[in-house]
């Protein structure tokens, strides 16, 4: 059952990602990205990370993608033209990506024992467990990350400010 759900949503995620690249209209690409985000949330849920799954839906599918769609609607972006692509991409890009993918896959495959594994749906991380780890064991990295986000917000404000 868990494996069937995993395969279905994994395929949905991959299909959404491919559709995102192949669609010519920006709004269709944005909608495929929403599908990708939501199916990732289901995969998190299968791994027992319920809070993370819902945070993924609320933050990514809900808030961030709405802003994407909002910008596309506001700019009224039309369909993009289809080109033949650059020659460099065909001769260097595709083999490069394939090589990188092979290296990553083989590395993960050889190291998979030292990473340790888990079975789908075999345990549940409750929200209180998660917050205990975040606010006790990993407090400093957590706070530093939030400062990083604050810096990004300040940067956006500075960039958007009108000079007079």
């Amino acid at each position, binding site marked *: 059952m868990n494996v069937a759900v995993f395969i279905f949503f994994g395929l949905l995620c991959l299909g959404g990602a491919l559709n995102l690249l192949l669609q010519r209209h920006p709004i269709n690409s944005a*909608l495929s990205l929403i599908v990708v985000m939501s199916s990732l949330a289901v995969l998190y849920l299968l791994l027992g990370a319920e809070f993370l799954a819902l945070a993924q839906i609320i933050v990514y599918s809900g808030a961030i993608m709405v802003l994407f769609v*909002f910008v596309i609607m506001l700019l009224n972006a039309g369909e993009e033209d289809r080109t033949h692509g650059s020659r460099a991409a065909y001769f260097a890009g595709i083999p490069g990506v394939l090589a990188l993918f092979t290296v990553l896959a083989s590395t993960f495959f050889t190291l998979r024992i030292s990473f340790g594994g888990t079975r789908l749906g075999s345990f549940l991380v409750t*929200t209180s467990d998660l917050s205990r780890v975040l606010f006790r064991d990993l407090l400093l990295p957590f706070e530093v990350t939030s400062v990083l986000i604050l810096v990004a917000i300040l940067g956006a404000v500075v960039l958007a400010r009108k000079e007079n």
Partner: protein
Amino acid sequence: MNILIFVLLSLLKVAVVTVIFLMAVAYTVLLERKLVGRIQNRWGPSRVGPFGLLQPLADGLKLFLKEDLMPTAVFRPLFILAPIIALSCALTSIGVIPFGENIRWHGVDMFQIADVNIGLLVILGVTSIGVYGIALSGWSSNNKYSLLGSLRSSAQMVSYELALGLSVIGIVLRTGSLRLRDIVNLQNTHGILSWNVFGGFQFVAFFIYLCAAFAETNRTPFDLPEAESELTAGYHTEYSSMKFAMFFMAEYANMITVGCVATVLFLGGWSSPFGNLFPAFGGPVVQALLPVFWFVLKVFCFLFLYVWVRGTLPRFRYDQLMGFGWKYLLPIAILNVMATSLALAFHG
């Protein structure tokens, strides 16, 4: 055999809740028309059936028989998908709301469809997906009024979602759980005195929740997305027949869901306002149904408030709406979270 009974009972439960919910949606429309009528010193619908009680049926029949127009220049797949997204999101979140005590029959929880650990987050998540119904409908209609309406509504819903999310954090801090049953169980010890809005000192959070919820459901005084004097009808200008009816039902279903959530979070859910003041009476059936009665009564009062506000307050201007959300509601919500956590740290 056991699993079969379980599945059948669960399906039956889902069907019953959905039917009651849709009926409630239809009669909320009637309630609104009647009450707004009385507020404006006229009768409201009174011709179909006794006291106009069959009016929702007539309205439904009329909408069903209308011609389903498809404008020529629309972006067809999204134009059809948008009302489906809006309605399905509106109908989904009722699934995690508990209506009564945890009474099990053949292992099936009688008064809740799904008891989820993170029920509160599920409601917030479904609400945040619901924005797409309105955003996509306006964009795919290829009409400037629709586009303006949906731009307004996406901006408004994203902004007020923050205040909505922050206003419920105080409750989660008090309960220490995101499960809606736990949140209600904490409030049903001393009747009205232990409700979060009174005994929990969450009245500020309740006010913020109220404003944010009115904005999330696009209701007066925040009904900018469909401001008829400037945008004809906003995001659903181009829709007709059942597609329009789906948006209409989604709006009223969202109102009811928001009322249910407010009841569960702030008004003690199914618990009686008198606590254990009166001795238990009647048989087990009465004792099981009495909490549902209190729940429905509280939701009804909330819907009454909705209509009352619509009949009383004028619409905000757009910049006022955004300023109110970001400059007042959000800081107050953050202060409320800080005050609640300080109080809990020193007393709790």
